[in-house]
């Protein structure tokens, strides 16, 4: 299963936007988060939430083919 990882704000200094090929199905947001935190350990100390296909998600949220998974640090609009 192929997904896209989008990265914003401060997190762009830690990891790049990227496509990920995931072997194990069914897959959840939590699985992806663990994998990214293993690959980019600095992520572990950051505050961020995740969104799937533009909706806020939790670790339980399931992923489907071509999902757009976004890592969102605290907002600061306005």
């Amino acid at each position: 299963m192929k997904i896209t990882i989008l990265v914003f704000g401060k997190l762009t200094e830690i990891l790049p936007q990227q496509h990920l090929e995931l072997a194990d199905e069914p897959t959840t947001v939590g699985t992806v988060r663990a994998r990214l935190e293993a690959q980019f350990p600095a992520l572990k100390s950051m505050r961020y939430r995740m969104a799937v296909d533009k909706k806020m998600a939790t670790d339980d949220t399931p992923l489907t083919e071509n999902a757009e998974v976004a890592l969102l640090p605290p907002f600061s609009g306005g």
Partner: protein
Amino acid sequence: MENKEINHTANHRHKPVFVEGPIEPAFVGVAIGKHSANTTIGAHSIFLGQVRSDVLDGRTVTAIEYSAYVDMAEEKFREIREAAFAKYPLTCMHLYHSLGRVGAGEISLFVFTSGKHRREAIDACNEVVERIKQEVPVWGKEIFDDETYTWKENK
């Protein structure tokens, strides 16, 4: 164009909220003037966010560079807008948020609500501002006068 805009707002038509660079004060004046044809309006409430030149460790903020998860943010703006129209008897609402660089003293957020009476205009404006700050994926990078920067976080 002017009348078209006023007629369509009743359908909660969603224009893009993001604009490139600062929102000009004169633009706000023009936006206000477009509502003189709608004489069911009795009250306008406006919120403007302006970039502050805060000082941190002796460095002064000279600008904020805004970035966003644009697609998700525009969806959120639409959701916030529709929720406000559902909750309050508004006549119009207009939202603008900057992307890119906005200098200290310049305006980066413009929330504009109008209704028959002040209560709905003021309450809706207030609520929309709070929701934008909390729920819309936008990030501001504060640029200091020595070219260093820090990432802002909303309270």
